[in-house]
C-alpha cells in the first residue's frame, strides 16, 4: 500500500498551509507503513471524527469512517469497538471538541482503556467558527467571544490524559510530520487507550504559536524513560500551553504502560456481532414467566 492509496477524490478545504495537512500526511504514511509491515488491515480499520476543522479528515482518508457529532468522537469509537472488537479504531478530535464539549468522554476513555487511538488536533481555538477560545487556549487570549481576554488557564491535556490513566500518552507536532508518523504508528499498535496530543497551530486565528513552537519544541530522546510515570508527569509540566515566556515543549512518547483492555474483560467481546447468526430460543427465554 502507498500513502496515496488512502487519498480520496474530495477537494481539500483546509486553509492553504494549514498544519492539518501534516497530520493527514502523517496518518496516511503511518497507516500505509503498518499495512505494509503486516501489522494492520486497512479494511478492518475504522476512523471516527468530530466537528471542527479537524473533522474534515473524515473526507480525506479512504477508510471506513463515522463523522459524528461535535464532542462525541470517543463514544463513537467506543461503540465501534464494542460492535466489532476486530476493528482497529482511530479517533480524530479537535481540542474544543474533546476538552470542551466532550471532556467527560475523554476522562472515561482513559479509565476504560479500550484499545482505541485518539488523536487530538490542538490548535487552541475553535477555528471553524472563526477563532473563539477553547479549553486549551492560553490565559489572556482575545477573540470575538472573549474581548476582555480569556480569564482562565488552559487544561494541560497531556497531564490530564496521564492522570486519568491513559496507557499510551504522546505529543506530536504537525509541522514535524516524520516524527509524528512514528508516534502514530506506536499509538495504533499499543494495546489500550492511546492518546496523541497533536500541536496543530492555527495559522489564521492563533498565529503566534507557530514561531513559539518552532523555537521551543524538542523531541524526547532515549534519556526519557517512557515506563516512568513520575518522569512523564514532569515532562508534561514543562509547558502549560501558554505563551507568556519561553518554555520547553517536549514532543514524543511521554508514557506507555500495560493494563487489561476494556474488551479483554468481557467474555462476550470475541467476534463481530454481525457475524453471529442468532436463533433465539423462545422456550428458554420465556421459561421463567410460566
Amino acid at each position, binding site marked *: 500500500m502507498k500513502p496515496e492509496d488512502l487519498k480520496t477524490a474530495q477537494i481539500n478545504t483546509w486553509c492553504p498551509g494549514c498544519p492539518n495537512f501534516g497530520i493527514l500526511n502523517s496518518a496516511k504514511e503511518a497507516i500505509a507503513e503498518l499495512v505494509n509491515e503486516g501489522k494492520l488491515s486497512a479494511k478492518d480499520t*475504522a476512523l471516527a471524527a468530530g466537528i471542527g476543522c479537524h473533522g474534515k479528515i473524515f473526507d480525506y482518508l479512504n477508510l471506513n469512517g463515522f463523522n459524528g*457529532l461535535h464532542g462525541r468522537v470517543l*463514544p*463513537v469509537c467506543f461503540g465501534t469497538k464494542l*460492535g466489532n472488537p476486530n476493528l482497529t479504531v482511530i479517533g480524530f478530535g479537535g481540542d474544543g471538541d474533546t476538552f470542551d464539549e466532550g471532556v467527560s468522554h475523554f476522562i472515561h476513555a482513559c479509565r476504560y482503556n479500550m484499545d482505541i487511538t485518539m488523536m487530538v488536533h490542538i490548535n487552541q481555538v475553535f477555528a471553524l467558527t472563526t477563532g473563539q477560545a477553547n479549553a486549551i487556549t492560553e490565559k489572556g487570549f482575545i477573540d470575538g467571544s472573549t474581548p476582555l481576554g480569556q480569564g482562565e488557564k488552559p487544561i494541560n491535556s497531556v497531564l490530564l490524559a496521564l492522570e486519568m490513566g491513559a496507557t499510551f500518552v504522546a505529543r506530536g507536532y504537525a509541522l514535524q510530520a516524520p516524527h509524528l508518523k512514528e508516534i502514530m504508528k506506536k499509538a495504533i499498535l499499543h494495546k489500550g487507550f492511546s492518546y496523541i496530543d497533536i500541536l496543530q497551530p492555527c495559522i489564521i486565528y492563533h498565529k503566534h504559536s507557530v514561531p513559539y513552537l518552532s523555537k521551543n519544541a524538542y523531541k524526547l530522546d532515549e534519556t526519557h524513560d517512557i515506563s516512568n510515570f513520575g518522569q512523564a508527569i514532569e515532562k508534561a509540566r514543562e509547558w502549560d500551553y501558554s505563551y507568556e515566556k519561553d518554555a520547553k515543549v517536549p514532543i514524543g512518547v511521554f508514557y506507555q504502560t500495560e493494563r487489561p483492555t476494556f474488551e479483554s474483560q*468481557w467474555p462476550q467481546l470475541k467476534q463481530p*456481532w454481525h457475524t453471529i447468526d442468532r436463533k433465539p430460543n423462545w422456550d428458554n427465554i420465556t421459561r421463567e414467566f410460566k
Partner: protein
Amino acid sequence: MGSAVTSHFIGKIFTEWGYYVFNYRDYPSLIRGGHNFNILKISDKPVYSHELKYDFILALDQKTIDTHKKDLNKGGLVFEAKAGEPKILANNVLIGLLFKHFGVDLSILFVAAEKTFGKNADMVKKSIQEGYQLGSEKEKFKKLSPKCFISGTEGMGIGAIAAGLDIYLAYPMTPATPLLHFLAKRQIENNILVFQPENEIAVINAALGASFTGAKAMIGTSGGGFALMTEAFSLAGMAELPLVVYSCQRGAPSTGLATHTAQGDLKFAINAGHGEFPRIVLTPGDAQEAIIRTQEAFYLAGKYRIPVILLSDKHLAESDYTFNQIKKSTLSANRFILENPPEDYKSYKITVNGVSPAAVPGQGPIVRANSYEHDEYGYTIEDAATTVKMQDKRFKKSAYLKKEINKLNPVSVYGKGSNLLVSHGSTKGAILDALPQLKNFRFLQISYLEPFPAEAVAKEIKKSRKVILVENSATGALADVIKEKTGIEIKNKILKYDGRPFTPDLLIYEIHSNLRGFRKSTHS
C-alpha cells in the same frame, strides 16, 4: 423482603394456580422506608388493571392500615404483622395467612418459595408455615390451568432478546432501569452485552457506533435522559443507522416524579431531534404487546435504517400482567446486512424505497456514516442539488413504512358501541377492564404514533357518536396529534396527571360525568 417482592410472590403463586393477577406497584423515590405498597387484583377472568378498593390488606406497619383501611370493602380483612416481628419475616407470615384463607396447599407455597428464594427458602418457608398455622381456611380455590405472569419491563426484555439484540446500553434512570437490570442479569446466557457508559450522551453515540458495525443496539432511558440524547437521535436520522430507543415515561417536566407514571412525553417522542427525518414511535399497551412491539421495533429499525422509539411508562414497565400464554411476533430476526457488498459500495445509495442496503466495516468496501449532509458515498457535501436529493431519499422511506405498519395492527378496536374512547399505551388496562361496564362504548387503541395511522383513526372516529380521549397527561397530547394528522378535533378528554395510573372505577365515573356535560366533537 419488601412489598414488591412479596406481592410478586403472591401474584406468581396465584397465576401458577391458574388465576389472573394484575400487580400494581406504588413506591416513593427513596431506598429504605417510606410508604411502599402494591395492589393486587386477582380473578378467575382476565384482568389488566388494579382497583382502589380492597378485599384484603396485608399490612406490615400501622401506616399501611391508617392509609388504606378507609378503602377496604365491606367484609374485607386486614392481616397485620405482629408488633416486634422482623419485617423480613412478617411478610412471609402474612403470605401464609392469606393462602390459608384461600385453601391453597402449603406444599404449593413451599415449592414456590424454593423456586423464588433458592438458598434463603428455608427461612421463608418457616415463616410462611407459621402464618399458615395461625390462619383459617375460609374459601377453597380450585386449581385452574397455569398462566404466565410478566411485567412490561420483562416483555421489553424478552422481545429484545427474541429480536436478536446484541448490545444494550443505558445510564440508570427510573423507571427504565429495571430493563437494564433484567438484560444485564441475562447477558451471558443470551450472549448479549449490557453496559452502563458515563452518561446518556455517551450511551446513544456509542450505540450508533455499534450500529455502524452491524450490531443490533438498543438504549434505555426516561424522558430527562432522552432529552440529553436528542442531538444524537437526529444523528441516527441523518446517518441512517438502525437504533431502538426504550423511553420509559415518568412524571415530568424536569426531574418530575421519579417513581410515578405519566404519558406526557408523547409529542416529545414524535418530535425529538432537530431537523426532519423519518422515525417510528410505538406505544405498547401491556406486557404482551411490549414483546411484540419490541420485536417490530428491531425489525423496522433494521429494515428501514431509522431510529425507533418504544415509548413506555412507569405503569406499564413496573406492573405485572397475566396471560394464558405469551406469544412472539412472527417477524424475522434478520440483520438486513449485505452478505457480499459490491466493491463500489455506496453507504447512502439512492434506491426506489430510499433504503440503502447496508454493509459494515470489515467486509471490504469502504463504509461511511456522516452527520453532515452527504452524497451517496457518505462524503460531506453542501451543494443545493445533492441536499435536496438526499433529504428526498430519506423521506422516500415514509410511504413504504406506512404500508408496512398497516400490516402490524397500528390500531386496535375493542368492544361494541357507537361511542368511542381513544387512547394509547398503558391506559389500555384500565380501559379494557372498564369497558364491559360502560354502555355503548368501543375503545380505539393507537399503537403506532409515528408514522400515524391517520386513515384508520379517522374512520373509527367518524363512525362514532361521542368520542372521549383518555390520557395520563395534563393536556391530552394525543388529541393534538389526531387533529394534526386527521383534522378531527376531540374536545372531550379525561386526563389524569397526578402521577398515578387510571383505574376502571375512576374511568367509569369520569366517563359518566363527561357524558352528562358532553360537548360535541367538531367532526359530528
